[in-house]
């Protein structure tokens, strides 16, 4: 059954659902601001406005066509790697090496796009992992070598390898998800991971008492975490059967995977920010911070969900 743009009808309903939630959120923020203008809800208003831009870009690019969607996801990866390399200490000698690191992005997303799983899964963790230290060694500067190699390898894994799982899910999903295709799986992953962030934030704001990781991310509470994950499981159970090959119970389990891994990605990036002494990773998205502040949960949720569904549902 196909609808708008030749896309599966369920994807159309999902998109409409996202915009309905967004409109409702915008109305609530508008009412709050009307009752109490000023600084208090400014950040919330900025965040909501940024959500319009992000959801707009995501839905347009992903729904337009496959190539545009992959290029869009690769561009997010580029922004994330650039933000990461700009935050960490780097050596002048490695300037041209870093240019090669950027070149890894189109190559990795190409493997994902043509659904060559074997190459997609080894390119960064094996080939790039071996290539960059050797390149740096050949250039002959040994001072700070280990930290340069370590930070670059970890950065490539976090910003290129993990995020490229979204592209592979989109490209490979058609064969296991005949009705709704890769788009349905990608929607399920991205929408629920982002929804989980918002749900954890809301539950934490409303009922937060007991801190989970006071040293890393003092705003994270058990109330927010449990409330958020429970909400994500509930929503996953409802939408999973329409967007994925999973039934209600598998969808709920996938919701738990997304909720927990999303939280872990969030605190991992928080630890990095603490270590570097910055509050946000950048200023690209008003109210949110940088791109890494927005995709931090996806760096864990994307590979976790992809390998979960691949293990249980792929042939």
């Amino acid at each position, binding site marked *: 059954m196909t609808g708008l743009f030749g896309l599966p009808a369920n994807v159309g309903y999902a998109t409409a659902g996202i915009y309905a939630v967004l409109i409702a959120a915008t109305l609530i923020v508008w009412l709050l601001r009307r009752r109490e203008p000023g600084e208090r809800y400014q950040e919330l208003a900025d965040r909501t406005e940024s959500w319009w831009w992000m959801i707009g870009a995501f839905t347009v690019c992903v729904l337009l066509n496959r190539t545009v969607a992959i290029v869009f996801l690769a561009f997010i990866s580029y922004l994330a790697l*650039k*933000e990461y390399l*700009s935050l960490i*200490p780097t050596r*002048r000698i490695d*300037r*041209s090496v870093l*240019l090669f690191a950027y070149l890894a992005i189109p190559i990795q997303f190409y493997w994902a796009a043509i659904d060559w799983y074997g190459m997609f899964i080894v390119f960064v963790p094996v080939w790039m992992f071996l290539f960059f230290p050797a390149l740096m060694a050949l250039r002959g500067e040994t001072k700070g070598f280990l930290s340069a190699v370590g930070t670059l390898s970890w950065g490539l894994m976090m910003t290129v390898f993990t995020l490229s799982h979204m592209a592979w899910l989109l490209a490979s999903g058609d064969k296991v998800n005949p009705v709704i295709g890769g788009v349905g799986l990608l929607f399920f992953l991205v929408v629920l991971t982002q929804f989980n962030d918002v749900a954890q934030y809301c539950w934490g704001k409303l009922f937060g008492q007991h801190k989970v990781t006071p040293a890393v991310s003092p705003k994270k509470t058990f109330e927010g975490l449990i409330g958020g994950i429970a909400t994500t499981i509930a929503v996953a159970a409802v939408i999973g059967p329409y967007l994925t090959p999973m039934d209600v119970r598998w969808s709920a389990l996938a919701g738990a995977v997304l909720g927990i891994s999303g939280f872990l990605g969030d605190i991992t990036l928080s630890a990095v920010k603490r270590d570097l002494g910055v509050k946000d990773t950048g200023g*690209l998205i008003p109210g949110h911070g940088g791109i890494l502040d927005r995709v931090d949960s996806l760096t864990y949720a994307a590979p976790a969900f992809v390998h979960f569904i691949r293990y249980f549902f792929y042939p």
Partner: protein
Amino acid sequence: MSKNPFVKLLRLLFFAVIVRAVILVALGLTVRHRERLPKDGPAVLAGNHNSNLDALAIMSLMPLRLLPKLRPVAAMDYFLTGGIRSWFANKVIGIIPVKRGSGKEGGNPLQLAEEALDRGEILVIFPEGTRGEPEILQEFKKGIGHMAQARPNVPVVPIFMHGLGKALPRGSLLLVPFNVVVSVGEPLYGTVTYSEFVSKLQRAMTDLAAAEKLPAWE
């Protein structure tokens, strides 16, 4: 700058498409205190200098509506060496040439710049005088102090930038993407002696730099 409508269009396209694509998309600016930027000319935007992209980055902070008024002040000996380079610097970038060292011979090297301010234009100037070592702030030259004193009603806005010296340092043709932090300071006015003004401006720049948490680059 050129009166030729074709060259004017070329300048608009160059800044609207190529410069903005490189500076805002490929590199990306994180701008702090954008509201401190002047809304119109005359004004002086004084940046720290690390890269050939500095002037283009400052120019892309301003709306395209003000593009015809934006004029980077640039060294004659570096940019006006004849041929296509001179044509590009003059007509497309729209530089105002300054003859380095001519102050010592008794002339006013910033004569043309001051005339531009009188026409209501917005100058982009680098008081360090040269790019020097990437991402290291050098002592400011005195010229900006004399200019501010000569035009005490014109705001001089310090703009601290970090990242362009990593993206495209002196001596390199290879552009490596890095995010750029741009921090805009409060406007200063040349109502004090020129040397006081220079040290005030330099202090403002150092304070803007100190407020940023910048990663090591060694």
